[in-house]
């Protein structure tokens, strides 16, 4: 007799955005992301409740995966931001803060959801079309004949995460390395489709940051207890195994094998392995690399025949090593290895980094694989440095697609906000008619959008200071908390991106009302270069992701939850 279990009815929440509890959680998430934003953002300890490892970070790629919510709306936002990060690496916090601000501001100004969606879309298209225009004043062209803008871009990203605790000299060192790594992965002269090279990152704890370095070729950590320090400059015939050579049986799945108790399976497989070893020696292989473990007996056999053995390479290094040596990984030990599967490696040598001994392999000819060795004093900081390094790598690559960058330090946000406000005011009546609403309603929607953009710029300040914008170029300035009126009359120094200095024109606080104006492009004084730049591609996509996610959230009428 089967038991009948009574099912609980599903819970349906009407208009989740009007629910106080949901709003509170959205606000909490916004505050959380906001507090991490920017080079002076606050860090978070991330851990699980059973006392797992603690990571300390302010990167969205570390914090967001640890956030679980009972509210599907929050998870929706989280997922779309994570999705953005997985494609563009940068601007995750920007997307999150902007999206959540849009939702919050719309509710605060009691804007109808449907209208908010329409106006948001309109404003987004204004922004994107403006950013694509040639006379866009917050975009900077990246000139590949000079490394300056690339360096600034790399430097801005590296400084954006305070948990790295880098000094100025260290920041410069790492950004130089990043730019160099980027340039090295671009093949110089190959006709036809261009394939970008790879940079492999190796981390070493306990060494000073300035010991970080770039190497052509691959550096592979050796776990080898049996010291082999033979280095050679000749070409070494190389074989690469992706299958385990540990002498264990192949994966059986759920099946079973019935065997005679007198049969020694281990010995039989070992025989097969030795057979394989014999072939390798016959084929004059000099370097044998395996992704997994190699049986010690096979290792001993190969070594005794002068073969350099490397085991436990790991998944991540398989592809780069394959490219470097020009080999196909061998996936079975039951067939003869075809001669085409062999590759070549040059200049084998060992290098010592702190406690790690690494084997340095170089390509025969040009293979754009290089290794970055990143060093830092402790694990927490090293982890964050690694996150930042990957981000920098990706962002620099994105410049190949679109050789532009946006002004950083909040200047792009304030500039866009001023532009949208100005444009909205100008075209209020006709756009309102197009969106089938009153001009007043439309302007309210524009205000919500602009306030949200301003909010992102304001999030850069964490020490109780306030944010200001000049009424000429619409750049962003921070005013420290203990600055008095006279101080501000004296001037505010450089703007967020470092392009404008203390324009004596008027300025306004970002959370106050101001008359709309058309932000003027910077003319003539091109002697000053921006000191903070953001990725163009990543930011434009983040803008779109934020607005579309916010629109989707605004569109949610019911949340239906199956509680069984």
């Amino acid at each position, binding site marked *: 007799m089967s038991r009948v279990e009574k099912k609980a009815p599903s819970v349906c929440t009407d208009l989740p955005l009007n629910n106080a509890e949901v709003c509170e959680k959205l606000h909490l998430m916004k505050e959380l992301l906001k507090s991490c934003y920017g080079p002076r953002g606050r*860090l978070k300890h991330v851990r699980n409740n059973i006392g797992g490892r603690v990571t300390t970070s302010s990167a969205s790629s570390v914090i967001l995966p640890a956030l679980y*919510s009972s509210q599907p709306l929050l998870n929706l936002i989280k997922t779309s931001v994570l999705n953005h990060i997985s494609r563009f690496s940068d601007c995750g916090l920007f997307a999150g803060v902007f999206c959540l601000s849009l939702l919050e501001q719309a509710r605060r100004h009691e804007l109808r959801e449907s209208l908010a969606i329409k106006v948001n879309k309109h404003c987004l298209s204004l922004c994107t079309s403006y950013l694509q225009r040639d006379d866009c004043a917050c975009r900077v062209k990246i000139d590949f004949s000079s490394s300056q803008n690339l360096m600034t871009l790399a430097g801005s990203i590296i400084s954006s995460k305070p948990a790295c605790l880098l000094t100025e000299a260290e920041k410069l060192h790492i950004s130089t390395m990043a730019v160099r790594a980027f340039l090295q992965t671009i093949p110089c002269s190959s006709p036809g489709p261009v394939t970008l090279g790879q940079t492999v990152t190796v981390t070493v*704890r*306990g060494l000073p940051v300035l010991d970080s370095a770039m190497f052509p070729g691959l550096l592979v950590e050796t776990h080898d207890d049996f010291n082999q320090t033979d280095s050679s400059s000749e070409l070494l015939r190389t074989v690469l195994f992706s299958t385990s050579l540990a002498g264990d049986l192949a994966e059986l799945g759920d099946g079973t094998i019935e065997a005679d108790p007198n049969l020694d399976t281990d010995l039989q497989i070992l025989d097969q392995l030795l057979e394989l070893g014999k072939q390798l020696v016959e084929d004059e292989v000099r370097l044998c690399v395996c992704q997994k473990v190699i049986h010690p007996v096979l290792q001993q056999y190969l070594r005794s025949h002068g073969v350099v053995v490397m085991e436990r390479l790991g998944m991540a290094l398989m592809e780069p090593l394959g490219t470097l040596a020009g080999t196909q990984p061998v996936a079975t030990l039951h067939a003869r290895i075809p001669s085409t599967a062999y590759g070549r490696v040059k200049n084998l040598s060992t290098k010592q980094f702190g406690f790690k001994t690494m084997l340095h392999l170089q390509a025969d000819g040009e293979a754009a694989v290089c290794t970055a060795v990143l060093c830092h004093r402790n694990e927490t900081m090293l982890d964050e440095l690694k996150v930042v390094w990957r981000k920098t790598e990706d962002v620099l690559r994105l410049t190949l697609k679109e050789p532009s960058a946006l002004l950083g330090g909040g200047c792009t946000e304030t500039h866009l906000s001023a532009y949208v406000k100005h444009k909205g005011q100008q075209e209020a009546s006709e756009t309102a008619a197009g969106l089938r609403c009153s001009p007043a309603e439309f302007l309210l929607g524009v205000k919500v959008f602009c306030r949200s953009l301003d909010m992102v710029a304001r999030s850069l300040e964490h020490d109780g200071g306030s944010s200001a914008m000049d009424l000429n170029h619409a750049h962003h300035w921070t005013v420290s908390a203990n600055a008095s009126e006279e101080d501000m009359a004296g001037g505010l120094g450089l703007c967020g991106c470092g392009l404008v200095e203390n324009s004596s024109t008027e300025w306004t606080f970002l959370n106050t009302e101001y008359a709309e104006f058309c932000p003027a492009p910077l003319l003539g004084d091109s002697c000053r270069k921006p000191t903070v730049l953001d990725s163009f591609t990543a930011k434009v996509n983040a803008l779109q992701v934020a607005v579309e996610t916010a629109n989707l959230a605004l569109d949610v009428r019911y949340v239906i939850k199956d509680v069984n």
Partner: protein
Amino acid sequence: MLKSVTAKEHQYVGLHKLSALARTLHSFIGPQKSYKFIRDDRSGESALTCSCFCTIQNLDPTCALDQLVRETLQEHEKIYHTGSGCLMFLAGAWSNAALHGLRQGISITQIISAMSEGIEICLDAIRKSAVFFNGNDVILSRRSTAAAHSSRLSLSKKAFSEASNMSSNLQATPAKVYQQAQNGSGHRQIKLSRYFCETKSEMVSQFETYSVAHIAEALSHRCDNVMELAVEAMQIQSRNNQDISFVPFDITKVMTCVLFGLPEDCSCVVQGCIVLLADEKVSVFHHLKTKHLKVALVNGDLSHNYRHLGFKRPAGMQHVRDQPGVSGSSREEEWVKKVVKLLLDLGVNLILITGVACKVMVQHCCRHQILVVEKLNFSVLRNFAQSTGSVPVTYASQLGHHCVGTGVQLALWRDLSCHDRKLLLPVSISTGGNTELVTAILTSSVQCKLESLEDRFWACAYRLHHALKDRALLPGAGRTEMFCICHLQKQAKYCREKRTDSVPTAAAGTATALHTSVMLELMAEGLMDYITTVMINSGKLSKVKARTIVSGQLQTFDVHKGNAAKFPQLVLRNEATAVSSVKTTECAQTVEVYDNLCVKQEAWRKALDLVFLVLQTDGEVVSGVDQKMETDAMML
């Protein structure tokens, strides 16, 4: 799954926690340490600890901060094996400084930039006060250590009386010798041996004895007896080295062997590898002790079901017999017989393994007079491989003629049977004269002290190792700290003056300068705390008195002219000598105390890193929290 973000309501709770944690560890600072008991209320077990690192290791981490501290200390200890106490103290002291700064309304950004400036000043001052020595001048003694010890004592007395005759002012004594060696490059290159050239020329033959011993004595920090063992270990090691000139202390070739039941002064250092043998192995040893042995090295366990790392046992394997099994011997016995036969064929008498051997195997080996020594470090195995020409293998079945080494000898280190019948037999395994392996035998009649004794030995050995590797020493006993305080205060004063000078210029700049000066003062205060705590820990001084002495010294010091070595040593002196310059016999025996350069630099830097990470953290993201459990957390 739910999650939580702990609230901001208790502002900077992390810094408070860090400083509180550091405060509980204050008693481990300085040469005079007090033991601490750590008790587990649930199991009733307790542990006796005598170091900061040991204590933190024994505590269960309950929050993110504990974990962060643990991680930092582990990392530091893994490389340096000393200096954790200093690291922890400064982390606490500087988190206090940061808290003071926050209370005065200085923003986090400004605190970080000011303290970063501060640590640069400190590190620079440390570099300036370091005493560099040329490697070639440190020549090792080839003499017996007993002679070395006695000559050292007489020398230091002579040197002292010579110096104190020249000037009755004690403060000038330590500095005198170093001034002469000052050179123009900024770094003071001194030859330690020159110290004695000055006093008497016939001592030339004895420099070599003095050099390393002098460094060791300076670094011993009142663990003289243990430090002597470290020096001895180094001397034995270098005896085999053909190169007479400077050799760094190779710490990987040093082992420890702890023996319970002997008084502490029985501790000594022996060449070769000392292992403890029990029961049935003893008779095998007696059989083998005079012979030249053949040795096999196995990196792993010696048992039939042992498989190498990374081997996956098949899950779905079933054995099917077509007739009932009647064979008497099990698989294990078959395997053991096979291995023993192989060993006998190869003529192996001694097997050294990193893992453990199964019981049956040990019994069989004993029956055939083969000695199995278990649980050795791989570095020991590697050493035997080098000196005997043997090759370490993973499985005994891999052994062949080319894997087996020769020329190993066993000897009884000391017969302890008269003390107690049940004691383990300490046996030395050596490869004639050419082994570089050295074992320090640490003895104590109190069993729970052995662990801390071992800790102290390693701390001393590593201090010596780092000093020889850095080729530099740092004036200790509070002198470097005082030098740093001077530099911090000088910079703080400069910042204040800059502020008052520049009246009309940017106000933001003046505020920053003021805040920097405040933070630098607070950092100096942290170092001051460190010195006074060490003084309090090591003597009869009260906190007030200690402070008076330190500030008195600081006032008379001129930053522009002096260096750290010009400060008198504060910590090891007693009250009377520190205040007035009375010559006492106790004073005459005071040795100059030195610290390690790189250890101190790293510890300070790591301490500040820890403070910065905690300072910048304003929340904790915890995943997988049950909504009902946490009360002060906010749920997403």
